[in-house]
């Protein structure tokens, strides 16, 4: 009846206690309101409009207002709890995403995560607001009213009491069937709704393929399908609340008739009969509301489950390591390093590699050879799931490199670097927000940004990132480079195909900028562009997740192997060159 995930929210118990107290007070007010209204009406029926009537009417009014007031208090308390819980969950999600690292974005998709932290959290907020009120009301108010009715007229009390299991029985039978159907179709119609979203998002592509007009028929069909499915879920929900409604209203009608007969037979005076009649609808109200809101809040309930699943995901282990700044004498070795992604076989196996001091290492291989996975392992974004430590850093055996003291020495340059919506200055000062403008300018200059900045009217203060000035891929890479240069502690540079999205001239220019800067740094570069190799100290060749060759370029290029194959297959296509040479 009440979701187990709810118990994990902070303050839930306190909130439930308060809500129960308010519900009890509400129940008492309902009883008081009914009692005084009965008095007033009976007096009027006896044609006695006297001070007792005024007294009863006044107290009826007071209790009526009190009831609404307690309801107001309850709503107030629950909505502030729900808002706090939503805030708490949002914080949990943010912290969780930062903790899990980039792997979670690959796993769940950024769109999905954003939906989860906004729309879904809001659904949960509304769910909490309603379901807790309904739950506490259901647990208290009917029982208070039942006691009052028994006290007034035990036969009526018995009718109400007996109708309760009957209604609950029908509710369970119908509710279960409805719930099953609704739960089953929920997934179904979520998919249909996504179909429409898909069509709208992919509209440009559909237009390019010239099927967009034909597709509108499919959108129409899917939309109608969606309507029918939604309607059939709603029908079930409506039927079950109809059944509930029907039995409760009918119970009141039957009771009215029974009371009437008892009155005619002089078994009962008017006052208790009227009191029972007045209070009966309120007896059934919490039950009906609970039944109705169950369906309305299915979204929120599912959202809570989805979110809990995210929060319960196993967190990657952070490693504590002795602080060791990377120097010329440092050494990192990987032994038998393997990594496997949950859903596919694309991984790395049994990697053995030793990295020394300030050297320049290239990882080459075809797409999907495992280059990026290796870089992610080196950055600590991924953690191997192996019994024995696969890393050894200057004599320290380590299970992974997911450690602050390691990551603070890193700079990571992806294919498409992300610029934050801020000025270029702030973007460069990302690792060191306190850096002086002078130092920022110097770093920008080293990264080759000066000519670009001079052409901008606002220079370093130009806003970049989403919805701001577009920036070419090459300049974005340079900003990332300046970011790394600004923090002299970041001496380990990991680059994942930094030039893959650049045209050949920008690529060449970027390469000319990067290479001289790496003298006192360790550069590990994943690339499938062979022209980088000449300036590298060590070449690691990967194929299908394994290191198939490693060594100096001069040695590797002359012996048969993967690198020679790659270079040969590129060379044969160079028939322009060959023709010119002849």
């Amino acid at each position, binding site marked *: 009846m009440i979701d187990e995930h709810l118990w994990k929210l902070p303050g839930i118990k306190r909130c439930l206690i308060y809500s129960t107290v308010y519900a009890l007070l509400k129940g008492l007010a309902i009883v008081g309101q009914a009692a005084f209204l009965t008095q007033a009406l009976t007096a009027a029926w006896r044609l006695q*409009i006297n001070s007792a009537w005024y007294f009863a009417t006044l107290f009826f009014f007071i209790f009526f207002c009190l009831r609404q007031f307690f309801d107001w208090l309850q709503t107030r308390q629950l909505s502030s709890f729900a808002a706090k819980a939503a805030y708490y969950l949002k914080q949990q999600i943010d912290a969780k995403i930062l903790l899990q690292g980039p792997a979670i974005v690959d796993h769940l998709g950024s769109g999905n995560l954003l939906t989860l932290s906004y729309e879904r959290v809001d659904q949960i907020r509304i769910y909490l607001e309603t379901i807790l009120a309904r739950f506490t009301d259901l647990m208290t108010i009917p029982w208070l009213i039942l006691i009052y009715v028994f006290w007034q007229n035990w036969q009526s009390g018995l009718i109400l009491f007996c109708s309760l299991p009957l209604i609950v029985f029908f509710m369970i039978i119908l509710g279960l069937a409805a719930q099953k159907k609704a739960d089953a179709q929920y997934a179904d119609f979520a998919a249909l709704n996504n179909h429409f979203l898909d069509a*709208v998002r992919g*509209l440009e592509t559909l237009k390019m393929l010239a099927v967009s007009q034909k597709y509108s028929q499919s959108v129409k069909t899917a939309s109608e399908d969606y309507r029918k499915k939604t309607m059939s879920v*709603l029908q079930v929900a409506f039927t079950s609340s109809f059944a509930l409604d029907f039995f409760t209203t009918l119970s*009141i009608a039957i009771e009215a008739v029974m009371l009437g007969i008892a009155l005619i037979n002089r078994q009962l005076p008017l006052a208790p009969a009227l009191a029972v009649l007045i209070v009966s609808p309120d007896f059934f109200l919490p039950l009906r509301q609970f039944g109705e809101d169950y369906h309305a809040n299915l979204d929120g309930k599912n959202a809570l489950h989805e979110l809990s699943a995210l929060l319960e995901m196993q967190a990657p282990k952070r490693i504590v390591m002795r602080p060791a700044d990377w120097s010329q004498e440092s050494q990192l070795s990987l032994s038998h390093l393997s990594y496997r992604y949950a859903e596919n076989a694309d991984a790395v196996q049994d990697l053995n590699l030793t990295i020394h001091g300030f050297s320049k290492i290239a990882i080459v291989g075809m*797409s999907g050879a495992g280059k990026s996975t290796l870089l992610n392992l080196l950055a600590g974004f991924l953690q191997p799931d192996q019994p024995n430590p696969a890393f050894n850093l200057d004599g320290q055996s380590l299970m992974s490199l997911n450690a602050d003291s390691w990551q603070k020495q890193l700079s990571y340059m992806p294919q498409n670097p992300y610029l934050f919506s801020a000025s270029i200055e702030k973007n460069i000062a990302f690792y060191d927000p306190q850096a002086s403008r002078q130092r920022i300018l110097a770093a920008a200059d080293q990264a080759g940004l000066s000519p670009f900045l001079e052409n901008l009217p606002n220079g370093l203060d130009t806003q970049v990132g*989403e919805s701001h000035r577009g920036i070419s891929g090459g300049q974005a890479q340079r900003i990332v480079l300046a970011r790394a240069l600004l923090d002299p502690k970041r001496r380990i540079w990991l680059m994942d195909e930094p030039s*893959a999205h650049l045209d050949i001239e920008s690529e060449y220019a970027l390469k000319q900028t990067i290479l001289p800067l790496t003298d006192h740094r360790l550069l590990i570069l994943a690339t499938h562009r062979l022209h980088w190799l000449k300036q590298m100290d060590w070449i690691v060749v990967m194929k299908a997740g394994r290191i198939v060759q490693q060594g100096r370029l001069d040695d590797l290029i002359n012996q048969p192997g993967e690198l020679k194959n790659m270079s040969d297959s590129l060379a044969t296509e160079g028939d322009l060159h060959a023709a010119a040479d002849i």
Partner: protein
Amino acid sequence: MRQRISKTMRLLKQDHWFIQYLKKDRLRLGLLLLIALMTVFCAMALMFTSGFLISKSARHPYNLFVVYVPVVLTRAFGIGRPVFKYFERLESHDWVLRIVSKLRSDLYSRLERQGSFLSRHFQTGRLLGLFADDLDHLENFYLRTIFPISIAYLLFFLLAAVMAVVDWRWAILVVCLMLIVLLLLPMVALSLAWEKDQQEKSLTKKQYQDSAEALFGLTDWQISGHRADFLQTVGRGNQQLSRIKNSNDQHQNNMKLLSELFFALAALTLLFWSSQHLTNSQNTANFAASVILAFFPLMDTFVPAVKAAADLPLYFSSLNSLNQLSRQTMRPAAVTQSNKSHFDKICFQNVSFTYGDEKNPLLDHFSLTINRGEKIAILGPSGEGKTTLLQLLIGDLQADQGEISFDEVPVDQLQQKRAANFAYLNQAPFIFNSTILNNVRLGNEQADDQQVIKALDQAGLTDLIQQLPAGIETQVGESGHLLSGGQRQRIALARILLKDAPILLLDEPTLGLDPITEHSLMQTIFRNQKDKTMFWITHHLAGLEKVDRIIFLEKGKAAMSGSPRSLYETEPRFKKLYDLDLGRI
């Protein structure tokens, strides 16, 4: 406030999405309101008859027959209320869902009509998805605001009429109290909601951006070492947002309490009235309880008016964005269309194009003639108009100056035959959440499985398909996220190859692939698409040997142009780049 009202009136006057449906289905709507009224009527009548039944019975009539009619009526209304309620809910949802379904296809076809508009205004598909949310809001607009308010007012007028007939002095008092509940408080709630709504929206937008930043820059945050700072900054915004939402709810809660209290005052008035006018005889006194008891079910109809009003800002902003869309997607003036689908020559004559209000033109008096079957490679720095050239060619963008023609027929006369003439692989092709087979078959819906497999083979995907247990029936996930970037690119390529149009436009088809895969892929394309005219945007020079001509676009002009061989021999810059690309430097 006045400004807002006039703005709202203007909005409703120009509306495409809402009012016309209310007008169109007047009959059904009338029926719906009638059923809704019957529901409330039954609820009131049930309490009325049962109150009367008990009061009358308490007079100890000599037999049961005296209360026979109220007994029957009590049962009838007891059954009637849930039945009417059931049909009311079923009918109203059915009606609204039908309309939203219509609107959904309408929205799609409106968006569909203008492709160039789309690419300019909504670069991210995400933004388009928002329109789907607006439609959902519209659904609730009917169900939670329009219907409840209409029913409340309808009931109010009916009651006011009945009361005026019974006792007009008393009627004025009750009408005043009810107007506070139905008009004054909702207005107050509305004006508070406008205020908060703006705040909430701008804050949500900012938070949304922050979160998006955190996700896209996650690697940077991960290694920055100051994750806690980030959580703190975002946390502050989150807290603010949650406070605003809470205070929104609190306002609604307050308004609800107020309207309940005013309703209680009305009930009190009724009690006094009945004590004055119904206690003259036993017969009239039997109705005293009935009148009061029948009054309470009205609360369920009247009090929600406050909430309905407070939700209006949300609905209006959705309606506004949908209406803005329809204004922007008015059909452009039609141009006489030509049926031609065979060409010998494509001509760019002195074409100039500048994006928006930017200073430098992307194309500057650019001229080019291409013969049928020619394969052209377009090179050049990024952001220099390579993609624009293709968009002008298919007519998605219009040149500011000059003309693009196919055997003298200008491009805007060929828009109807666009599908038959072009196969265009754009830079960010969309992969639909379906199977590989369905995604590829979109290129040509008449193609059989064998043809699809062949296209997949040409795109170099045979190995992948063989690895997958479900083969071409494999689901690719939302936006194809179960595949790698290179695989997605190749599926889009297969789709284009299946299309089999005479002019092939490829915008960086091998993005994200390694040079060896890229090379073999392009070789396959050249082998299989021999008779096609082809435009190929690329930034790699290796593998260009097979094209007939290379155009090097720079500063709006063809900085270099010619066959690969002649460029290599005569242009030192080209030779240098070419050698660079092969790793010879």
